């Protein structure tokens, strides 16, 4: 068990971070190259001002027509995105890892709160899953890739929760938890989770066209 633990927190972790950053960089670079050769008439209209204006509206809950018309999803989406970054970064156990491996230290979320927030993330994953199954409009457009993306995000939180509570065998669970986190990082550039790197550009483009050319709001 110890050897496996050493492996997943040691060499495999470094490999994961490398794959994550390299994957994101490669996807961004190749997409930019493709855009330069095929989407020049779109790139020509990109504007910092209107990109930021559009992003500012869409990162504000209920500031857009779409958010207002889907209140439950809006609350769930914002909470979910804040937590899936905040919890892994600021959890006490993780803060120790940041210090151990990267030599950076910052304040942590107290354990009981971290535990509670993890439950919130798990509940939100369940909400998204139920919505996929229950809402006919969402069910109709759901593909395998959407379930894969959800499962990839769900796994590290679920295993983390089980490990922290020591509900099943802790040693196995903590290894599964680390593996699940590593899978998520590696998968980000190659699955639906790639919206993490691309959404800022699609949003900016729409903001630029609507702001600079069409003189209309895109929210």
């Amino acid at each position, binding site marked *: 068990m110890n050897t496996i633990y050493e492996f997943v927190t040691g060499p495999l972790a470094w490999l994961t971070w490398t794959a994550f950053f390299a994957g994101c960089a490669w996807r961004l670079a190749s*997409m930019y190259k493709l855009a330069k050769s095929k989407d020049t008439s779109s790139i020509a209209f990109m504007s910092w001002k209107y990109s930021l204006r*559009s992003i500012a509206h869409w990162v504000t809950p209920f500031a857009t027509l779409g958010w207002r018309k889907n209140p439950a*999803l809006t609350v769930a989406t914002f909470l979910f995105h804040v937590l899936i970054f905040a919890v892994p970064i600021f959890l006490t156990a993780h803060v120790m890892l940041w210090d151990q491996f990267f030599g950076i230290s910052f304040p942590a979320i107290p354990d009981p709160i971290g535990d509670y927030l993890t439950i919130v993330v798990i509940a939100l994953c369940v909400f998204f899953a139920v919505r996929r199954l229950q809402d006919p*409009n969402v069910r109709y*457009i759901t593909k395998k890739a959407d379930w894969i993306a959800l499962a990839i995000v769900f796994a590290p939180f679920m295993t983390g929760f089980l490990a922290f509570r020591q509900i099943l065998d802790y040693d196995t669970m903590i290894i599964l938890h680390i593996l699940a986190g590593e899978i998520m990082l590696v998968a980000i550039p190659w699955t639906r989770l790639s919206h993490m790197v691309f959404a800022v550009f699609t949003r900016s483009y729409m903001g630029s066209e609507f702001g600079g050319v*069409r003189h209309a709001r895109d929210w």
Partner: protein
Amino acid sequence: MGIHDRLIEDVGLRRGVSRLTPEKIEKTVNAVLKNETGARLKVYSETCMRCGMCATACHYAQSHPDDPSYTPAGKVRQTLDVLLDKGGKVEPDFIYGMAQLAYTECNLCRRCVHYCPIGIDTGYIMTVIRRICHKLGVTPQYIQDTAHSHSATFNQMWVKDDEWADTLQWQEEEAREEFPNMRIPLDKEGADIYYSVIAPEPKFRTQLIYQAAAIMHAAGVDWTMPAEPGWDNSDMCMFTGDFEMMGRLKRRHFESAQKLKVKRIVMGECGHAFRSIYDVGNRWDGWMWHPIPVVHSIEFFWELMRDGKIKLAKKYPGPVTVHDPCNVVRGRGLHEKLRELVRFLIDGDIVEMASHGEHNICCTAGGGVINCGPPFKNVRVAGSKSKAEELKATGVKTIVAPCHNCHGGLEDTVHAYHLGMEIKFLGDIIYECMEKPEA
């Protein structure tokens, strides 16, 4: 549930599909995807999170609340998704449904843009699908006829060269009784304004040319219309996916204005033509903007009002509601000027529909949908149910709609849902209410 459960017989689609083979489809689909699309389409299809937020954006979906195949993402799932998943290996019958969906169940109005957090442009995706259909030769017969007319005559309605000049002179003569000195100046070099219209105006809405000429005359504008092809600013080729022809049309239009050394082009009350000239056709021709300035009638009339060049003998009786044409509102942000102008013209209030300004609901005729003709009329009218409900809720009797296609669509909607409303162009109201000193 989906387009294949509601296929409609159309000669153009049927004949087109009958000529297809799976090999030809695969080759064409992949050629368009590889050569004509790039990062934009790739990222859209990869990062759409299938959240379904766009479902309630679309008037087709609002009008069919229990059928997810009418939602924006639902339309993509039935078209682009399948092509990408199967690498273009689909049967000819699939293309029939794909074409029917892309040409008749999406107005390219872009209302869904206001609903997508990621910023996916479903209108663009549907345009790509139409492009593939055009290249496969599978287009609805009626709209293809207008595209053929564009190719043969550079106007949409098979108006012959002599008929065009004749029609203008006929309108000029008609107007002599009311305005003894009124001219419709043809080919006047160096005029301030080059006025362009869509071909249905000389074909069957000549009163619009009459009214525009009367307004120009009363406002003392230095204007002209071209005697040669290039006068028609409309563009059904943009909607069929015939971008080569779209490019030729726009080039001809701009060059016709350039040849006359005019200061700018003013376009009649049309939405799609503005889209074509403003940010679609011009880009195909490699112009980031325009070789000469272009303004829509809304803005032009607004300027005349601001400068005191239109004097009213009376105001038009209100209250009215204002319909925002997608292509000049979501496409150009003219909704505020439109309202300022309407307030100037009417006596009474503007009663807004629940969705207005950039958030307007489309008339369901736009994007070439009405041009697909009678076979698809009932689908279109059924899709405008949510528009009809918003119109009805205003409780007014007059709709101001500065776009030809919107008029066509709204007329059908008003009739089918027994709304008992009249639909007015800005030109109708200005002409009716302005001072006519010589009369």
